[in-house]
């Protein structure tokens, strides 16, 4: 019942927003006044970067409307799209949300506004995720989260262990760390973080969705993902890898007191470690991910977002111009790095902007050189129109598996994810192979 009330309230709020935005569009978008653009985003301090644009472009004024985060902003946008009004001109959209948004007809195609000119600034894998492999361009990439391996250099050294470069070595190091002190783990398998697991499947060569002519394919239960799930299931069953979720008070304490000796994370990890494990500053180091095949180094992405223009914008051309500037202009990217603390998707600008390591990693001067090297090896991955369903299936099915602590349960979880994701697409009417 509470939910039904909430649904009604959302509808009413949308109706109210509809009336108000209708008014402001008329007054703000006249011929003589400047073009006014609304931008829904949640990156910290983004408004300071936007201030630079506003000072330089009196004709196009952008207002940042702060959002709670990726999921709520997208839910709000989809509601506004359904209602026919109330959407902003620009939105910060995570890569995995783009197919869902395109499928709801929420994103404008930027290719007609010259967005194709900046294609070369981005890695192919990143560009694919904003075009969905088509001729359309649905967003300009902003930041990316290439995955890396973070470890307590002091503890590995003390135990006389080398930094693992392959997954076999990672398993051996995990065994050695746990054998030396049963309270210590090299890492944890987190059923809460679907994006983390997706990144690791991506590294192994998985691409969970695909477009084959006029039909979608869902390829979760295939060799790469099964290999990754079986690998982690084996380590959890053996007991040498922890099975508790990340981002809990317990996990934070573990990072801080040395019980969590490593973390498979992404380039943004220094910020999290600095906040959760402040006592360990200077003790961590970053390395490329352990590999399945050392001759073909690869990694996945965990996180990353783009700037998209909505279909409800009255000024898509101006909005596209701003989105391009924000993510490829030298001054803007530098400001994104220093004030918003992101890792830019634009590789050239990233290199110029990221000169010194993050404060928490001041012991590793080559931090961003390692990151740039890793970012170059991101495997291609196609997201589908129901990533939300696949991710919530991951949470439920892998929670059961992590609780059961058996390798077979991990493999069953992959099969269940495949079935839930496929069934959902078929139920909605998508053509699925």
């Amino acid at each position, binding site marked *: 019942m509470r939910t039904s009330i909430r649904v009604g309230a959302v509808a009413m709020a949308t109706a109210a927003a509809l009336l108000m935005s209708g008014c402001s569009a008329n007054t703000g978008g006249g011929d003589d006044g400047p073009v006014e653009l609304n931008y829904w985003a949640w990156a910290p301090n983004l408004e300071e970067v936007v201030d630079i644009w506003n000072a330089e472009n009196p004709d196009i004024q952008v207002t940042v409307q702060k959002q709670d985060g990726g999921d709520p902003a997208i839910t709000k946008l989809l509601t506004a799209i359904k209602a026919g009004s109330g959407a902003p001109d620009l939105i910060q959209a995570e890569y995995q949300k783009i197919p869902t948004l395109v499928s709801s*007809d929420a994103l404008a195609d930027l290719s007609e506004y010259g967005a194709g000119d900046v294609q070369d600034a981005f890695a192919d894998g990143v560009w694919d995720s904003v075009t969905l492999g088509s001729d359309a361009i649905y967003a300009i990439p902003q930041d990316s989260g290439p995955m890396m391996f973070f470890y307590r250099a002091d503890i590995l050294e003390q135990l006389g262990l080398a930094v693992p470069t392959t997954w076999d070595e990672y398993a051996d190091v995990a065994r050695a760390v746990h054998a030396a002190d049963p309270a210590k783990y090299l890492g944890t398998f987190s059923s809460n973080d679907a994006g983390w697991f997706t990144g690791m499947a991506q590294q192994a060569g998985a691409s969970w969705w695909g477009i084959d002519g006029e039909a979608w394919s869902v390829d979760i239960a295939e060799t790469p993902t099964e290999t990754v799930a079986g690998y982690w299931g084996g380590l959890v069953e053996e007991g040498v890898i922890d*099975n508790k979720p990340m981002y809990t008070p317990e996990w934070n304490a573990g990072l801080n007191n040395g019980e969590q000796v490593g973390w498979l994370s992404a380039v943004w990890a220094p910020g999290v470690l600095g906040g959760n494990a402040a006592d360990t500053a200077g003790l961590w180091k970053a390395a490329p991910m352990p590999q399945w095949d050392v001759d073909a180094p690869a990694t996945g992405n965990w996180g990353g977002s783009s700037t998209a223009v909505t279909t409800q914008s009255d000024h898509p051309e101006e909005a596209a111009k701003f989105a391009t500037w924000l993510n490829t202009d030298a001054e803007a990217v530098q400001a994104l790095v220093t004030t918003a603390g992101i890792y830019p998707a634009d590789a050239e600008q990233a290199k110029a902007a990221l000169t010194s390591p993050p404060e928490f990693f001041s012991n590793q001067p080559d931090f961003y050189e390692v990151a740039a090297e890793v970012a170059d090896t991101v495997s291609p991955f196609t997201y589908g129109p129901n990533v939300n369903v696949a991710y919530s299936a991951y949470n439920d099915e892998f929670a059961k598996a992590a609780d059961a602590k058996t390798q077979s349960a991990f493999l069953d979880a992959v099969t269940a994810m495949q079935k839930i994701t496929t069934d959902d697409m078929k139920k909605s009417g998508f053509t699925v192979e």
Partner: protein
Amino acid sequence: MTVTEAPVATRSSTPTVRRGRGTFRSRVLVPYAMLAPGIILFVAFMAAPIVYTLFLSFQKTKVSGLGLGSGARSTVFAGIDNYVTTLTNTEFGASVGRVLVYGFILIPLMLGLALLFALLLDSRRTRAAGFSRTAIFLPYAVPAVISSLLWGFLYLPAVSPFYFVFDKLGWDVPSLLSSGGVTFAIANIALWGGVGFNMIVMYTSLKSVPSDIYEAAKLDGASEIQIALRIKVPIIAPAIVMTALFSMVATLQVFAEPTTLRPLTNSLSTSWSPLMLVYRDAFTRDDIYSAAATSIVIALVTFAFSFLFLRVVQKRAFGQED
């Protein structure tokens, strides 16, 4: 409405003679004008959303082909599809089952403790009654999300002071957040927050009992315990029934506690309780239509439970008053 108007009209015939003109206006229109704010608020914030939810529950999204680009996604009439999906969904059945187990643990404990505390506070020999009453009631003022966060910390062995002590004593206490204990963990949070409220309801009802009844019982030689069990409990039975009803409804709607604890453990799924399932379908899976159907089913089941419960206990609890 016509049924209630009729007696008003007949009764007003006599005063019409006495008071003269304007009676239709004052007798019929004025009461409605005074009711209007209530009616408008009820319609806008209760009836309209319910009707809208019903309307949504008979629709679904239909995608064609790849579902990309404009016009690929449309909303169509679904008939009873969403209801069939809800009723055949094993996740829904499982969530109802879990909540029933949770209710069987929680409600007897919560009401039992509330009754015990109410009787103790009402007993003449209790000292510091005011302080105890406030102390027991205070947890009710803590929002469920906050209390779940607090208890979550206490449940996690690595950060819990309890487990620190257990560890020092050399006891191996299993985590309450494991799959076997998580129902108790949630029930405990609800118990902590709920006892105070139910105690206040029962205590208030005890306070309205005239004290001469107790004096009569005393003169007849009844002990404090006999007075409590033979006189106080039967007299406040209607209050106990009411708190039981409220608790049952709250149990079926449990949401905040498991949602807040979920990120801390592998043993809570996103469909642990029926309302969590609704939330997940509506806001994570973006399928507001089947979520609407599930909401309607939950509402109907809650009504059915409440009426059945009242029918069974009403005679026993309220019978003596007639």
